[in-house]
């Protein structure tokens, strides 16, 4: 790889880009409880970055900091090379950060198609008058974005259910629709909070394939939290390990797997 740019790195034979997001000394407290303590790590363009750790380690809080839902008391979030000021979650979403949720957070009263269309809201800008008349820009936008949404629906193989209300779908499909909604936003950073939770082996295989395909075909950077270690080790390029709000490991899956501190955190260690 002769013409590899300077800021690119190669991990296990896969080349990933420069820093997309960098967390610098993040500390997050809820009253007296410190959920995250002085954590720094980065997410590089085009990689699949996993955040793992035992229950209560602060992984979801970390994801919420990235998506702007929590504002950390200390530390900075750098995004695309500049520090991100404190902003509302919807503003962060408009910067190109999309996410899925640990407990599915779909809009149950809407159809699959409408749910995925909400992912495109930030790409639509027709005024109220045009929308009320279903004319001009509003109408053109509906068709244009429908095409983009249909591509995502195709990609995730949910064509058959596109006009079904989400409330009627089984769990595994709901997870997939949620991924579709996040993908429809064409994010530069995709956050997945436990994408395999509660799934059987086949569904996990499907979901893993989709995550790899998304990363491959669209080049989307993905940060995910997952408890299934097999999945994490197979999917991710680099792994951050958290325990009790601290970072205890960071590196390629193999490095992390053999790290004594990480093994201790997961298996426990005798103190005698």
């Amino acid at each position: 790889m002769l013409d590899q740019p300077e800021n690119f790195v190669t991990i296990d034979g896969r080349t990933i880009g420069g820093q997309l997001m960098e967390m610098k000394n993040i500390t997050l407290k809820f009253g007296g409880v410190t959920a995250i303590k002085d954590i720094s790590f980065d997410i590089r363009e085009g990689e699949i970055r996993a955040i793992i750790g035992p229950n209560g380690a602060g992984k979801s809080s970390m994801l919420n900091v990235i998506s702007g839902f929590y504002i950390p008391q200390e530390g900075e979030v750098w995004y695309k090379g500049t520090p991100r000021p404190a902003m509302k979650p919807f503003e962060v979403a408009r910067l190109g950060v999309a996410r899925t949720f640990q407990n599915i957070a779909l809009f149950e009263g809407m159809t699959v198609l409408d749910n995925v269309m909400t992912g495109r809201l930030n790409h639509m800008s027709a005024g109220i008058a045009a929308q009320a008349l279903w004319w001009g820009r509003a109408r053109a936008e509906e068709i244009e974005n429908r095409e983009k949404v249909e591509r995502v629906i195709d990609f995730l193989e949910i064509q058959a259910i596109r006009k079904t209300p989400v409330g009627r779908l089984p769990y595994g499909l709901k997870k997939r629709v949620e991924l579709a909604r996040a993908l429809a936003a064409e994010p530069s950073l995709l956050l997945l909070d436990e994408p395999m939770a509660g799934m059987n082996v086949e569904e996990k295989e499907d979901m893993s394939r989709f995550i790899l395909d998304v990363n491959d075909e669209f080049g989307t950077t993905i940060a995910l939290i997952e408890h299934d270690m097999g999945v994490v080790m197979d999917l991710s390029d680099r792994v951050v390990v958290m325990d009790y709000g601290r970072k205890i490991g960071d590196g390629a899956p193999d490095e992390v797997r053999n790290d004594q501190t990480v093994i201790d955190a997961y298996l426990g260690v005798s103190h005698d």
Partner: protein
Amino acid sequence: MLYRTAGQFKTSYKADQALFPVRQDAVLLAIILTFAWVIFPLTASEFAFQTLLIPIMIYALAAMGLNILTGYAGQLSLGTAAFMGVGAYACYKMITLMPWLNPVVAILLSGVFSAGIGVVFGIPSLRIKGFYLAIATLAAQFFLVWLFEKWSWLYNDNASGAIQVPNLEMFGTYIAGPQAASVTEYYVVLFVVSLLTLLCINLTRGTLGRTWKATRDMDIAAELIGINLMKSKLTAFAISSYIVGVAGALYVFMWKGAAEPNVFDIPLSFQVLFIAIIGGLGSILGNFLGAILIVGLPVILNLLPAAIGVQIDSAMVEHLNVMIIGSLIIFFLIVEPHGLAALWRLIREKLIIWPFPH
């Protein structure tokens, strides 16, 4: 069989997003519109206009306004009647201050005032939701009715404290006031209601509608996918109050002819809320079905004993009325908690596949 959709293929997204993608729906609507625009005006009696057609339209419009807010955006409101009042008083002031103003334009403009006031009373929704928000909108209900009573400028310092609709002329015919014909009033109401219904259907199926529904179904997720909740809720309050305000103006100008402040008291709010709930929250069609049931049923029940030759005195009829309507409301809510619109949706789905089970 009549509702078979087989063979109706969509080859473009434009066709799929058409107002009525199923041909039978369009035919059905055309029939209803023919009745509303041609057959009813030609055949209906004065009584039918005044007790059925006009009030059903106006109540449906008010319920549609509330439905935007409660059914689509998920913000519970008990202040509907007060916002109707704002529309009515605003229309009255405009008509008396600017007599040259076209009455239909005045009615459409009066909603702007209620929209502004609706946004102000919608601000609490940014912090509170559900029943607590309903209580906050009750404040609007009490405050505004109090204002209608105390601020005599609003009713031009009338001794009676009521607003009286003057004779309003358009293109040489009276369209409102004591000398207006019912059929003219009916056409004005029908025009305004048809127009606003079309706009509402478009709004609720487009970007704004999805924004509202997302806010209703899961506000945290909505915010995290990039929806500005403040904007979403306040536009819902504005548009809802606009429609409710126009309904209020029609209520006084095209139907009642005069109104005292207490007309806009809480029973009217509840009546509109019942129509929206029984018709179906989150549905445009439901408002009309609900209004037909709530407005039409008492009239029919009143006429029924005489029609079948049973002699009951009128007080008894009134009591029976309340009892029958009460139990019917409970019955409908048990059979279909999502309202008459959901019932129709179910029937339609069954009709499409009938006579096969799948």
